[in-house]
C-alpha cells in the first residue's frame, strides 16, 4: 500500500490537493510512507486498545480479589430455540461470525485496491450482514441473561459454593432428590438463584465442610462485579460493532455512488474502516479469552 499511495500522491498533487488521499501538509516527505488518515486510524486504535485493556485488566484484578467467581461454561450455556445446556457453543458461533465478517472485509479492501467498485460493495455488504448477525446474537445473549436469568449490573444470581454441604427445605429438613438421595453440593459447584413471583428464591444450605461446617446459611448472590463487568465490557465492544456497522453502511453507500472511484486512491476509505473492523475482531479475541475461556 505504502508504495502505491505515494505514487498517487505524485501524480495527483499538481491538480487537486484534496483528492490525493495523503493530506499531510508541508512537503513531499510522508511520515512512515502512510497517509494521514490511515496513520491516525492506527493511533486511534492504539488508544482504544488501551481502553479495552484497562477494562479487561480490571476484570482480572476484581476476579483475583473475590473468593469465588462464576464459571463461564455454567453461565454461558444457552442456545436459541434449544432448551439445552450447551456450554460455550453459542459464543463460539458469535466468534465465527466475527471471523467471517473480518475475512469479507479483507476481500473488500483487496477489491478496492483493484478499483473494482462492484467487488467492494458486494464484500462490504457481506461484512455488514456479519456485523448485524453478531449484534443480534449479542442481543439474544443479553436478553437471556437479563430476562431469564435476572442478572443486572448490580445483581448477580450466579454463584459458586465455597464448601461442601446439602440444601435444606423451608422447614429445615434436608432436601431430597427425586430418587431419595440428599440434595448435596460440593465445593466449587456453580448455582443460579431463580426468581419466584418476582422475588429471588434464596435456598437454605447446611455446610458439611469448611470453616462454617455444621452451620445453616442462606445461599448468597455471586460476586456483583461479574455482572457489571460483563455488561460494561461486552456492551462497550458491542457499541464498537454497532458504530462499525453504521460506518460500514455509510462507506458502502458512498462506494456504490462512485465517490471513492472518483478519488482514484484505491478506495482508501474502505481500507481505513477495514482497519477499524479488524480491530473490533481483535478485541473480541481477548474478550472471548478473558470471559469465556479462562
Amino acid at each position, binding site marked *: *500500500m*505504502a*508504495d*502505491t499511495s505515494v505514487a498517487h500522491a505524485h501524480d495527483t498533487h499538481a491538480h487537486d490537493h484534496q483528492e490525493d488521499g495523503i493530506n499531510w501538509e508541508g512537503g513531499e516527505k510522508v511520515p*512512515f*510512507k*502512510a497517509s494521514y488518515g490511515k*496513520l491516525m486510524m*492506527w*493511533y486511534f*486504535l*492504539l488508544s482504544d*486498545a*488501551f481502553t479495552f*485493556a*484497562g477494562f479487561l*485488566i*480490571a476484570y*482480572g*484484578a*476484581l*476476579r*483475583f*480479589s*473475590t*473468593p469465588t467467581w462464576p*464459571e463461564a*461454561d455454567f453461565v454461558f450455556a444457552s442456545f436459541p430455540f434449544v432448551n439445552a445446556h450447551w*456450554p*460455550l*457453543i453459542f459464543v*463460539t458461533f458469535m*466468534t*465465527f461470525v466475527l*471471523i*467471517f465478517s*473480518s*475475512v469479507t*472485509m*479483507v*476481500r473488500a*479492501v*483487496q477489491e478496492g*485496491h*483493484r478499483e473494482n467498485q462492484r467487488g467492494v460493495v458486494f464484500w462490504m455488504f457481506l461484512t455488514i450482514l456479519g456485523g448485524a448477525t453478531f449484534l443480534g446474537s449479542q442481543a439474544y445473549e443479553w436478553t437471556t441473561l437479563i430476562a431469564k436469568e435476572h442478572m443486572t449490573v448490580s445483581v448477580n444470581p450466579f454463584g459458586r459454593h465455597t464448601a461442601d454441604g446439602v440444601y435444606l427445605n423451608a422447614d429445615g429438613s434436608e432436601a431430597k432428590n427425586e430418587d431419595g438421595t440428599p440434595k448435596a453440593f460440593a465445593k*466449587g459447584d456453580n448455582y443460579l438463584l431463580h426468581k419466584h413471583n418476582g422475588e429471588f428464591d434464596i435456598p437454605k444450605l447446611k455446610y458439611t465442610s469448611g470453616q462454617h461446617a455444621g452451620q445453616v446459611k442462606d445461599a448468597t448472590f455471586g460476586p456483583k462485579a461479574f455482572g457489571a463487568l460483563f455488561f460494561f465490557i461486552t456492551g462497550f465492544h458491542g457499541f464498537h460493532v454497532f458504530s462499525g456497522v453504521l460506518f460500514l453502511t455509510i462507506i458502502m453507500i458512498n462506494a456504490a455512488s462512485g465517490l471513492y472511484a472518483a478519488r482514484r486512491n484505491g478506495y482508501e476509505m474502505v481500507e481505513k474502516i*477495514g*482497519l477499524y473492523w*479488524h*480491530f473490533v*475482531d*481483535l478485541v473480541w*479475541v*481477548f474478550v*472471548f*479469552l478473558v470471559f*469465556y*475461556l*479462562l
Partner: protein
Amino acid sequence: MAGHQTYEEQKALVFRGLLLLGAITIVEVVVALLAKGHLVHGIRFTEGFGHYLYMLLMIGFSLYKAYFIIFYFMHMAYEVRGMMLSVLLPTTLLIWAIIAFFQEGSSWGARRELIREKNEEVVKPKTGQPQGYLLPAAEWPRKG
C-alpha cells in the same frame, strides 16, 4: 495491497487466514470444554499445574490470533518498520499494568477477612479519662 503479491496470492492468504483463525477457535473451544470436564467424564484441568498449562495455552492461542489479524488482515507486515514499532511498542506498557493490577487484586483478595474485621471494629477509649488534653486558646504554647 502489498505490491509484491499477486491478486491470486492475496485471495489465497485470505482463505488461509479464515482456515487458520477458524481452526484455532475450534481447538480453543474443544480444549476449554475438555479442561472444564464437559467432554471426558472424570478428566478436568481446573486446579494446579494442569490449570496453569491450560491458561497458558489459551493465552498463547489468542496472542497468535491477534498477531495474525494485526500483521496480515490489517497489513502491518507490509508497513514501514518505524510505523509498526510506533503502534506496537506502546502496548508493552500493558505488561506492567497486568502485573501491578493482578498483584493488587490478589492482595485485596487475601486480606478480605482482615478488611472486613477492620471495617466492623469498634474502637473504645482505654480509660474513661480523655486521651490527651485541650488548652484554651489563650494558653496555647507559643514559639519564642
